[in-house]
């Protein structure tokens, strides 16, 4: 049976990719949100926030060109993470659609490796993240994003983003299964967006009130954002890198186990 896990996962991945190809607007929509946020943050808020960054102290990436450029460099990790979280929302929706649409009952009465059905969603989600990320990065470069580090560090940043993508994808698959309706599934990942705002992704944690600051510094997105910032602009990030990877691995494993358990025990919503 286990020999088929890979084959079945590939089959399910092909299904996700075909859906992506058939409905490309979803990928563009997923990329649109971080792009709009990037433009808003840089051109509307960037001047003031950039000026504030210097005053707040702490590590400021990107040299000392102008306030707007300073903030552009600062917010890039936040925008990249927003892209990952946005894709998660799409994944939760398509998983919930699968669950409510009888096809999952068919899969569950077939001798398919159970990890394959969900694994296909996760792999598809990762590829969609990469595509949306490419669009976002192109726009970021167009408005002036220039990483100051070398390609090996860029690769490390990309690697970390893949890990974050893995964690968010499994979490979204679980959320998509747990909610049981497409409407709820489209809202639940909002929690992740809120969590992202309550981190150092958009502004440093230094100016936050004490309890919030404590929370911000101990939740996964802050070490992840700090590590990305360091890998792209050379700011010091200490052991944040290890903490970030640990968070991603731990969340991926826990969320995958959770999702598989939900899949196994999924109740039937049809009348008796």
């Amino acid at each position, binding site marked *: 049976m286990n020999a088929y896990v890979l084959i079945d996962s590939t089959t399910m991945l092909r299904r996700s990719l075909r859906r992506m190809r058939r409905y490309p607007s979803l990928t563009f929509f997923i990329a649109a949100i971080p792009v709009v946020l990037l433009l808003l943050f840089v051109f509307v808020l960037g001047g003031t926030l950039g000026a504030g960054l210097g005053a707040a102290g702490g590590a400021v990436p990107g040299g000392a060109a102008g306030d707007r450029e300073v903030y552009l460099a600062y917010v890039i990790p936040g925008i990249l993470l927003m892209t990952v979280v946005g894709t998660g929302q799409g994944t939760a929706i398509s998983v919930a659609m699968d669950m409510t649409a009888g096809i999952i009952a068919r899969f569950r009465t077939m001798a398919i490796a159970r990890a394959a059905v969900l694994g296909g969603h996760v792999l598809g989600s990762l590829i969609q993240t990469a595509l949306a990320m490419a669009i976002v990065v192109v726009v970021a470069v167009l408005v002036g994003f220039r990483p100051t580090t070398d390609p090996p560090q860029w690769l490390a940043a990309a690697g970390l983003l893949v890990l974050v993508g893995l964690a968010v994808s499994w979490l979204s698959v679980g959320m998509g299964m747990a909610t049981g309706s497409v409407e709820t599934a489209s809202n639940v990942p909002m929690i992740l967006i809120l969590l992202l705002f309550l981190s150092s992704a958009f502004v440093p944690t230094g100016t936050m009130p004490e309890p919030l600051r404590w929370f911000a510094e101990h939740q996964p997105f802050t070490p992840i954002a700090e590590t990305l910032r360091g890998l792209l602009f050379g700011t010091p990030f200490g052991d944040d890198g290890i903490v970030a990877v640990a968070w991603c691995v731990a969340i991926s494993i826990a969320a995958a186990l959770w999702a598989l358990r939900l899949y196994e025990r999924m109740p039937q919503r*049809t009348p*008796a």
Partner: protein
Amino acid sequence: MTATTTGPAAITVRGLRKAYGTQVVLDGIDLEVPVGTVFALLGPNGAGKTTAVHILSTLIGADAGEVRVGGHDVARAPDAVRRLIGLTGQVSAVDGQFTGEENLRLMADLHHLGKAEGRRKVAELLERFDLTEAAGKPAMTWSGGMRRRLDLAMTLVGSPRIIFLDEPTTGLDPRSRRVMWDIVRELVADGVTILLTTQYLEEADRLAQRIALLDAGRIVAQGTPAELKRLVPGGSIRLEFGDTVDLDRAAVALGEAARDDAGLALQMPNDGGVHALRMLLDRLDEQDIEVDGLSVRSADLDDVFLALTGRTDGRHDDLQVPSR
């Protein structure tokens, strides 16, 4: 337990129980389905038909009892069971975003048929189910009958030896229903075992070698269609009268009839024979009782239930008997 079975059993169920909280859905079910036959689980909505099918097809677990499908225990060896079965449930298991051909190809890939064999099988099924023309269009644009055929075609990609069909014709127009019946007959001719659920006595009668009547989680009768019909000799005759005087006199004259005072009517069982009907009318004539209206009804599921459970309470209002 079945009285006589020919050949080995494809499905054996002993003492199957399932409850959701305090609500008992299946209360000790015994079934045996011989290989290569059609078995119908007949009952109204809420009788437990779908729950039984979901347990037999490994979707949900049972609380108690032994269920063997194709010789394997569904609880202990679900994957062995899954390799033998196919399920077409009430909820469409078709992916509407994809075309009919893509849906079938997905099944072929998941059954590891290989490229050439998969393509051959998909083409064969599209042809057989008369879906070739629409094969390239997304399934969500198809009609209900076509989607149901695709659903069954997807079940057949893996050439299952045991097929579960949960209300395969509910909501279909008469023509699509007939097409579905023909497909079931072809499958059985190929040696496939089919367990289907239905609310329609006629459907069970036409397709099944054996029928089990399920009511509120219990099997109230089990047998061949002929055996079951013997339990309900025929339909009924309803006589309507102009006033209570005639109604009273007729009730005395006919004895065994059930009274409907509000409708000024009497209802009595009848085997559908013309002779019995004539005798009945003669008896009323002799007494000079005037009959305002008369209707003859042939046996339907309601009568079977009345005969076997002694009630036709509100729960059975949803019984549907098509093409009377």
